[in-house]
């Protein structure tokens, strides 16, 4: 079975028969005519036989990867933030932020490419800029650079502002599990650890959820 989590910038594809995982840029999907068996993520809707709700995929994935009874899980994507909090392994709160603070994730990538930043070595910044949304945040970074701040430090300040937004959005928990591409961005994770004990779960949490959902639908995964 081909399962896919097609986000706005990256698509994660899992072949359950071989266990192979492929991560490609979503724009490459346009060049392929693959039809997935089950998919989630807003770019997956028209490319699958069965579409599953993003929040349900995330929540089911979290439940299959985390044994805790009570925990918070956040997925920081290119254009949105999804959040689920469990109490006794039952959903206690969930939210999906598409409107405010949207596209901040994609903006980090854009800025990184523009300034040639290596996020694996980028140092976290003590200061932050206010990141209301991607566009406002980008303007703040350009302003910092024009004031003489090195681009790397300015982008780290953007990341710090974004971390604060996510932290507030999820209700400032002491501990939380992180899903999505930012798990692989040490500057983001280290900055987040100033505020909360962060446990990165990687980029495949929604795919894990699709496995659970497909199995419960009686499919062989």
């Amino acid at each position, binding site marked *: 079975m081909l399962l896919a989590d097609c986000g706005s910038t990256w698509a994660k594809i899992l072949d359950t028969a071989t266990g192979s995982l492929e991560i490609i840029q979503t724009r490459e999907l346009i060049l392929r005519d693959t039809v997935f068996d089950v998919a989630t993520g807003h770019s997956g809707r028209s490319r699958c036989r069965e579409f599953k*709700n993003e*929040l349900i995929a995330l*929540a089911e994935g979290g439940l299959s990867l985390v044994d805790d009874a009570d925990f918070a899980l956040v997925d920081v994507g290119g254009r949105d933030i999804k959040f689920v909090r469990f109490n006794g392994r*039952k959903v206690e*709160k*969930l939210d*999906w932020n598409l*409107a405010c603070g949207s596209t901040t994730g994609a903006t980090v990538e854009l800025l990184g490419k523009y300034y040639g930043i290596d996020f694996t070595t980028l140092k976290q910044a003590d200061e932050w800029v206010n990141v209301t949304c991607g566009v406002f945040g980008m303007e703040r970074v350009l302003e910092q650079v024009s004031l003489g701040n090195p681009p790397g430090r300015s982008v780290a300040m953007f990341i710090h502002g974004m971390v604060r937004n996510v932290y507030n959005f999820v209700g400032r928990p002491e501990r939380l599990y992180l899903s999505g591409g930012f798990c692989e961005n040490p500057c983001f994770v280290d900055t987040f650890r100033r505020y909360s004990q962060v446990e990165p779960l990687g980029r495949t949490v929604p795919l894990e959820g699709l496995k659970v959902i497909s199995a419960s639908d009686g499919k062989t995964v």
Partner: protein
Amino acid sequence: MKSSSSKKKLIGYFGFPRRDILRDVRDRVGFDVPLVDLDVDHGAPDSGVLPVTTCRIITNIIDNAMNFRGRLAVVVAAVGEGKCDRGRHVSFLLGNMGFEVVESRFPPEEFENRELVFSTGHAPLADKIERIMETVVDPSPQRNMPGPCEPTHGFWGVPPHDFRVLELFPPTTHVYGWTRCVEAGRPGDMELECRVGEGVPTVFFTQSFCAKQDIARYLAEKYGGLAIDCHREINDSILAKVEAFIRLS
């Protein structure tokens, strides 16, 4: 005797006006003149009269009134605590725009205690809410009343502008909030409006820019529910949140 043009006339109303006021107006204008609930989306074009940060229901009232202009014999306006400040404001605006407006305030002494057949019944949620709102004009028992059920979920709030969100709920969803107050005949009864089933996973719905958002958020925190608000049409993110909450809670 009513002229034949009275057939084209309409009596508009919004909110939950007192039934005796509605009756008096109908008596005067004609019982054959259809009633139209101006809160509801009737496909009227955007009149552009109100700021964009006005709740969609109030905007519907103005857009509908402008669209039915010339046909609206009178508007019966709920302006008391049973509606909201904006009900009073829109009544003032309509009066100043040349509409005949009859204002209604629903005092607590006139609160009723009607049986909650639809709020606690087993039927599609949209049907239940629609039929509750029909009781504003005629509260007499209707045909095909649903039987009672234990709640698996709850819906708190006003009837939404876009009913599609209601399709996600199972028929075992109980109705709470202002809509339940309407069925009980107690608009503006804060205590009843804030009463929900303990342990029943409930979605607290408000239109964006509605003052009830304050209460919805508080109640959602208190009872572990999901607070959502929506301005115009329901979007995918809201639908996904509600669907996930219903499935996972």
